[in-house]
């Protein structure tokens, strides 16, 4: 998939590009609004990652231009302002999602994947891990025919790990993904630990869940080796 990264901070644009390349995306960067506007007019992108705070251009104008010319790329707007009205305005102007700086690269990937699933209308796919099935549409975990009793937050957590299989996710990345839009400083590593503990207990009633690993000092991972 082709991604255009519109970001005036060269260093940040490079990091995002380097990360997405590893996830098999083809990346181009535009450091100015003018550059971005030209590239969008000429090339066809599957995704545009658009920073709203550009020095020479109002990010919303690029968004408007793109949508008015019939561009159907998935557009995710990024801003350091984090204001509610920016989010609302962005979505109203045709953005597919919104991310506030500083965001986790993993979170960006997850948003791109979510937009892709929505755009290309992927039907319910089950993710298979160690005898369990994660039903991504209905947000349930099945063991054979039986449904595992699990809360919505617990499901979100395990699915996020499953989508990023074999990657270590830090507690904070997990926390941010699940409680991302909260308006306070409630980041509390304890929250994630408690939820993982509960998930393990609930899964263990059906089968051992050794694939849900704790990576010492870093976070958690679903490992394919132990699947």
């Amino acid at each position, binding site marked *: 998939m082709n991604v255009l990264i519109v970001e005036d*901070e060269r260093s*940040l644009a490079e*990091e995002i590009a380097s990360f997405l390349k590893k996830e098999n995306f083809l990346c181009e960067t535009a450091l100015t609004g003018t550059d971005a506007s030209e590239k969008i007019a000429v090339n066809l992108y599957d995704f545009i990652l658009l920073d709203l705070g550009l020095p020479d251009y109002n990010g919303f104008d690029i968004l408007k231009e793109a949508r008015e010319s019939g561009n159907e790329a998935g557009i995710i707007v990024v801003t*350091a302002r984090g204001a509610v009205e920016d989010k609302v305005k962005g979505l109203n102007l045709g953005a597919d999602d919104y991310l506030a700086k500083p*965001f986790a690269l993993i979170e960006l990937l997850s948003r791109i994947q979510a937009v892709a699933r929505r755009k290309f209308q992927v039907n319910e796919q089950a993710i298979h891990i160690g005898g369990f099935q994660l039903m991504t549409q209905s947000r349930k975990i099945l063991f054979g025919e039986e449904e595992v009793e699990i809360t919505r937050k617990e499901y979100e957590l395990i699915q996020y790990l499953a989508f990023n299989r074999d990657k270590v996710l830090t507690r904070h990345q997990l926390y941010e993904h699940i409680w991302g839009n909260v*308006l*306070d400083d*409630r980041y509390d590593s304890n929250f994630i630990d408690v939820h993982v503990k509960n998930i393990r207990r609930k899964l263990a009633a059906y089968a051992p869940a050794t694939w849900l690993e704790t990576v010492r000092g*870093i976070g958690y991972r679903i490992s394919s080796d132990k699947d």
Partner: protein
Amino acid sequence: MTFFSLISRLIFTVVFILLLPKIIERVNTYQTDIELIHQREKVIKLIEDKGLEQFIYSDSVSSFGSYNILKNEFINIEKTNLKNTWNFIEVTDRIIEGEIIKFRILSYSFKVHGQNYLLEIGKSAESIKSAEETTKKVILVFLILFICITIASDLLYTRHLLRPLNLIIKKLKSTASPEMFDKSPVNSSTADFVRLNQTLNELMDKISASFSREKEITVNISHELLTPVSIIRSKLENILMNGNTDENVQIKIEESLTTLTRLSSLVNSMLLIARIESSQYLKEETFTAAEILNDVCDEILPVAENKKISIRRELSGSFIIETANRSLLFSMFFNIINNSVKNTAKGGEILVTTVSENDISRIIISDTGRGMSREKMETLFSRFRSRQGDESDGTGIGLAIAKSIADFHNIKIDVKSEPGKGSEFSFTFFKNS
């Protein structure tokens, strides 16, 4: 001012009432004397016109006397051998038909055909007194009426006069922040009040301008800070995900990321408070207190259960929160209850209750935790101030956020706490007017 005029009037009235008998007595005596003199003139004129024979018709009769039936007036003329002329008024006792009666008597001597005569005209002291009483009563009634009327009219007038001032006070009282001040002009014929209102308007404008400048600076600084944080974060995450780094390096990177999280959390909190204080959030949702508190409790429950802390809820379904921002209030209650969980030991209890009395609704969150000292309570809601013995992770700004959300919604937070005896946070909701 009203008080002063009232007091001065009262003093005046009391002094007047005390002096009243003396004054009336004087006035009445004076009046009686005038009457007596007037009657004397009439009698003398009668004698001059028609002669003394009208009264003393023969030489054998030496005097003439007449008094009315009730014996309160009399007239008497008699022959006398007085050398000097008499013309005075005095009070003396007279015996009339065996009764001693006190009279005020005018004595006047005159000469007719070489013979001296004495004229006496008397008025009984009792009749004078009774006239006095009547006068006194009339004056008292008038005085009281006068006082009442002037006080009432004064009150009405001052109230009318001070109405604009009261209006301004009311406006100031209902102003939570300078930009909320009602800038409408005050209708008053008093130039001073109009000027006062204008001055207040200008003052509020100045204050809110400097407030919004400060908030703008906060917002700008936050943006400037978040971009470098964003770059460092992406770099560290990329290194961590490379996977081929040493395990110890990975742990250090994770620690750096956690520190970075603290930094961005602080910046975001600052940003959030600045936004709340500049009223950038909408307040247009209506929901029940039970709804939102249940959501908050459900969210915290796993962590509480992990610490064997029970959360008891006593929530009334009829407690409705109007014109509010749900996600802000969610954060507020979350921060408070989460704080309680952090400060309560294993096996403790947290109680969440709603209380409604008349027009006042309260939400009370209490815990059996370690409580707080008075010093700690004083700085509880202040921002970025280090708090002793605060072992909670996070930035410790959660309560400051809760406070600014409460202020934004006109909710009053009260804290009761004692070391070792738990804490109680109470949220008082006022009807939005």
